[in-house]
């Protein structure tokens, strides 16, 4: 009895109890949470027809907002007839869909656990079968090494930077919407975003910007984000806001400290 009481009052006891409680909570949650994973895996492993499998996936993970036949549900999700396979690939592979909670804009996040190349292909095949639309670009179309950076840079400055910033850092739009940073986007996702115009983004179809020009732009975007900054720390690559902060916080603080240090030593009387 005494030993238990002493143990209970041990300084580490509260942490142990906290850890135990958290672990228990997590364990219960894993048991109780819907275990769609295994079912999805079974679907993905089947070698059935892509469209049919895609329809199953769709009904399971997308239909609550987009409707059972992708016709859309008012105030929840738009109809997906005619958005094309490129749209599906962009939204699902970047983790934006399925959406976890509706807001001004769907954020990029870790894709859902059932998402892999096969399931995305099946889902895309199903949506493509409904009403056509832009298709997923080929590997050659998005090969950054085949593009012309300089030409792409000009197009990028003319068409993209007013929302995505000079270097693709992203930026704010109205009413909580935003242009996301281009750093995490894959070449294929950049291309798909241009042809499908997700969320607040306009569509840049092939008659406005040809596929070769799109490849040039991808070359520039990828080139800039991989480029080392010759001038030192990049300060977020967003221009004078961080520069001003550094001037005040680093520059002036250092100089004020220096002033205090210099004047702190009184002259010794001779």
């Amino acid at each position, binding site marked *: 009895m005494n030993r238990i009481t002493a143990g209970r009052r041990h300084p580490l006891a509260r942490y142990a109890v906290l850890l135990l409680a958290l672990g228990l909570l997590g364990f219960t949650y894993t048991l109780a949470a819907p275990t769609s994973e295994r079912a999805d895996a079974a679907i993905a492993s089947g070698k059935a027809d892509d469209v049919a499998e895609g329809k199953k996936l769709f009904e399971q993970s997308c239909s609550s907002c987009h409707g059972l036949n992708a016709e859309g549900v008012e105030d929840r999700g738009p109809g997906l007839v005619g958005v094309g396979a490129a749209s599906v690939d962009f939204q699902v592979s970047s983790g934006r869909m399925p959406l976890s909670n509706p807001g001004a804009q769907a954020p990029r996040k870790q894709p859902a656990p059932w998402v892999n190349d096969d399931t995305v292909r099946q889902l895309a095949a199903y949506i493509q079968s409904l009403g056509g639309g832009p298709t997923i670009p080929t590997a050659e179309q998005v090969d950054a090494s085949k593009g012309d950076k300089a*030409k792409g840079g000009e197009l990028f400055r*003319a068409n993209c930077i007013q929302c995505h910033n*000079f270097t693709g850092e992203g930026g*704010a739009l*109205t009413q*909580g919407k935003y242009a996301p940073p281009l750093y995490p986007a894959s070449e294929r996702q950049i291309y798909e975003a241009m042809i499908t115009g997700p969320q607040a983004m306009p569509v840049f179809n092939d008659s406005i910007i040809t596929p070769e020009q799109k490849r040039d732009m991808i070359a520039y975007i990828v080139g800039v984000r991989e480029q080392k900054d010759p001038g030192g720390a990049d300060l977020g690559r967003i221009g*004078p806001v961080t520069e*001003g902060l550094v001037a005040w916080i680093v520059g002036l603080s*250092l100089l004020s400290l220096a002033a205090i240090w210099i004047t702190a030593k009184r002259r010794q009387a001779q």
Partner: protein
Amino acid sequence: MSTGTVPKPIAGTSSFLDDRLGAGNFMRRNLRKVFPDHWSFLLGEIALYSFIVLLLTGTFLTFFFKPSMEHVIYEGSYAPLQGIGMSAAYASTLEISFDVRGGLLMRQMHHWAALLFVAGMMVHMLRVFFTGAYRKPRELNWLIGVGLLTLALLEGLTGYSLPDDLLSGAGLRITEGVAISLPLVGTWITFFLFGGEYPGEDVISRFYSLHILLIPGILLGLISAHMILMWVQKHTQMPGKGRTNKNVVGAPFYPAFMAKAGAYFMFTFGVIALLGTFAQINPIWLFGPYTPADISAGSQPDFYMGFLEGALRLMPSWEVNLFGQGGGTLPLSVLIPALVPMGIIMTGLAVYPFAERWITGDNREHHVVDRPRNNPHRTAIGISAMTFYGVLWLLGANDELSWVLHVSLNWTTYVGRVLVFVAPVIAYVVTYRICLGLQRKDAAIIGHGVESGVIKRLPHGEYIEVHVPPAQDIEAHMRGKEAVPTLPGAGNGSDGVPPKALRGPIGRLRAKMSAAYGGEKIPLDDGHGDGHGHDDHAAVGAGGDDKPAVH
């Protein structure tokens, strides 16, 4: 010192100079000039030394920069821009950055020095303002300072437009927008400045002349005048032991202050060099060449223009069309943000010493400065103006704020529109109260001494903490307090006919303002200063009755 120890070459040269220039006399007088020891007196030197760095690095940059808007095709070593058409100015800036040895470092140091130049001026100005060091006889030097700050903004504006990159082009476009929005003369001014339709062919070379010749010339002249006046009028000093309006306590220029100033120059140079080496600034190659059709998200000016940018972003889209469609348009949405905040701040700064003298009727010379708490209205006005400026400044970056903090861009604007009016009022009231509180604390220390940490038990059982008188220098510092003067006859309690100057509507207003602004709010030697009289646990801590020791 006996002259026998001086080597002949030195003795010979110095007496040669002395005989012809009278230098010895001059040196004897000025080398012993006394400089105060407080660290805040060095803040202005940040600006001075940054200016020297600016002159040095700027001269280097002129060797390679081509101030021309001639169209060229870039063939330099930065691959992502090869084969792109751009102005010669932009191409030569790229050349400085990538092909001139040490060029990028010089460019970056130039830009960092420019930011520190303006920032140094600002903190120096705040020091002078909050301590009242601008008072007679230093009003003219204060005005020179305001002129220097305005010119520094212009110098910065012309400077960051020179590389002709996409970011600076956005600033240039706003400059054009402001110029063209001026009533009556706007169109003429714009065509004169740009040599025709925007962007024209001339603006870079014109800004270049302004940036490297005219404005630095005036800056140099004004800085010299600023220094000479400071030298002649001597330094102000914080109140303290042995410090009066007739002396300056500190270290002599030679050798002590000269060493300090020299060291501080090295520090400034060093900090600028460190920033220039390790922190990338204005990477124009990422921005691309200027095309009037392009603009980037997150375009901001350098920090000292930020408050104007913020004003522009806050402003609703008001516009007045005079005399119908055929008449003139008065674009208030540009005019007001471009002129009003700048006008309030710069005019306010310039007028303040004279307004304060008018209100307080204080015509004496002041060489001992005020502690900010001892002139609560001035301090509150200063903080209030800083808040106004700060809100505008912050809102100049509202897109970055909304991006980083995940708030709606629209809401930053709505909130900013309210804050720009409300925040200065709140800041005023809060600052005023804090100042009075600090004065009360001083009065308490003078009246009761400081807590010694010694707890004493009295014979009848009560515990008290012994208070001891404050250290001599601290007490002298506190006792340097002077009541803010008021006009004679301005007080509420004055009877009879007011003096001539205080009659009439303006006179009555002046008297009212004088009574509110001046006067002793919390007398130092009157117990707590908060009205509950003399307490018993004064300096020696003699207790006795049932009052608890609350200090």
